[in-house]
């Protein structure tokens, strides 16, 4: 199994007033293709920091992060943006769709940013929306969608550029049990069938059975739950 996300001895401190607070103290993690890993932890345990570092949004104080074979150290902000665009698919807590784009435009924006050809993007967007069962909603603005539909659009957007790594930030937080399970099942199936690595930060214990591994973030390191 190919390792997609590789984190080694990641340490990160925040300056909190005068004292430095250590959030991550030597965290290591490897996620392979086809695997869905859940990361649990109480609030304030550093889940957001962990996800920001894994998602190339935040540079850790020390340690090594490699995504699909590319080490992140030394990349400038533009190179990091380009890497996020091609290698990482994000699914945020409250979907975070762009309010003025229709559903299919949310997806086409991603291919537009990576200068992909328009016809191929339209085909892929249709295919993804079909697969997630929201193709009939493709000409709607986000404010006309239900919470579950929005989160499915967010998944489709994350898949759009076919990135090897998917990162989900509490994707079920705003959904009821049934919708939440549905969304996680889609993530897990997507990871397995397309051979993607997926990491989901969650404190929704109802969906853990759908994950391949469940880890707990405590005292700045990850341990099996």
């Amino acid at each position, binding site marked *: 199994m190919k390792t997609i996300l590789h984190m080694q001895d990641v340490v990160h401190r925040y300056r909190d007033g005068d004292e430095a607070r250590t959030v991550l103290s030597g965290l290591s993690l490897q996620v392979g293709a086809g695997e869905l890993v859940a990361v649990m932890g109480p609030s304030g345990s550093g889940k*957001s920091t962990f*996800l*920001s570092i894994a*998602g190339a*949004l*935040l540079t850790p104080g020390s340690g090594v992060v490699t995504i699909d074979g590319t080490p992140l150290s030394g990349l400038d*902000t*533009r190179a990091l*943006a*380009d*890497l*996020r*665009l*091609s290698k*990482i698919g*994000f699914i*945020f*807590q*409250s979907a*975070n769709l*762009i*309010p*003025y*784009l229709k559903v299919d*435009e949310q997806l*086409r*924006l*991603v291919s*537009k*940013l*990576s200068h992909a050809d328009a016809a191929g993007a339209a085909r892929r967007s249709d295919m993804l929306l079909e697969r997630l069962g929201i193709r009939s909603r493709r000409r709607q*603005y986000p404010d006309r969608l239900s919470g579950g539909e929005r989160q499915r659009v967010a998944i489709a*957007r994350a898949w759009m*550029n076919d990135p090897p790594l998917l990162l989900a*930030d*509490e994707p079920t*937080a705003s959904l009821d049990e049934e919708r939440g399970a549905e969304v996680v099942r889609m993530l897990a199936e997507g990871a397995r069938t397309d051979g993607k690595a997926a990491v989901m930060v969650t404190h929704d214990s109802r969906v853990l059975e759908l994950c391949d591994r469940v880890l707990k973030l405590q005292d700045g390191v990850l341990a099996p739950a």
Partner: protein
Amino acid sequence: MFLALRELRFAKTRYALIAAIMLLVSFLVLFVTGLARGLASDNASAVERMDASHFVLQQGSEHRFARSELSDADRRKVEQAGASEATPIGIRQFTVTHGGGDAKLDVTMLGVDPDGWLAPRTAAGAALAAGGGEVVADAGLQAQGLGIGSVVKDEASGRSWTIAGFVEGASFSHTPALYMTLADWQSWRGGEPAYTAIALRGASSETLQALKRDSAFELLTKAQAVSAIPGYKEEQGSLLMMIVFLFAISGLVLSVFFYVITLQKTAQFGVLKAIGARSGYLARSVKLQVLLLSVSSYAVSTGLVALMQLVLPDSMPFRLTAQTYGLTGLLFVAMAMAGSLLSVLKVARSDALQAIGGAAA
């Protein structure tokens, strides 16, 4: 492009409102500019159209033609200083009657050499003849019922002149100009002092220095002569202030509008950056919106001003040339782009990190 246009489409009301403000401001800018140009022309076109670089006036006249009196000896002195292309002129504001003495007209009488380089180029009728007894008038007088062959009269001296032709755009201090021959001018004014001023062109810098040093004369440039016309500076100054303020207001209004919108969208920009949009792409998107709004509002307002010009009375001093339209437009758009700078900086600083942890909405 992709984001900018779709956002305009989605938030139509919001952007239509700001476009309406821009439209009104740019309309006002064009209107005041047209008025300023029109008044300037009404005030000084007789001097502006002269092909002269400098004027020699009597010492102590404080740049005013009305206060200057030069003799023929002065003219020779100017020529001796090395000014080869020097031609004397007479300028006097005056009231004449026409139509058999019933109607009075405020005019500016200009005495020029009919064969010299200040002779008016007539647009209609005959040129100024050396024979005398004739004048060439500003075409604006046609609206007052005067035509070729009409007679204007100075009641005091009993002299009268026949209008031989018309020139376009020749007025001085908001009065129409009447050109007569220098010989007529001198006999009408009674010999000495012979002239008001001496116009120069192509004079060498040594000549100009010599004239400047001469205590009998005042040497002024054409621009100085124009701004010394009574009321010219005051008129243009206050209109220019309005124009400058309008430009500043348009820049500021746009700046505030886009800054507030950008602040509202900070979280959204964070999400876009998180999914891989570069700051440059997002900044370009904001700039494109500003460009679209300012260019389209300006285009519509030029149309409205052109329509309004059809309705304005001919006597209203209003003048906009294609060049003024273009220059004003460039300034307007540049001002708008400067106004977007604050937002662009804000976009550049918006942090992709906000997208994680549910902080973004």
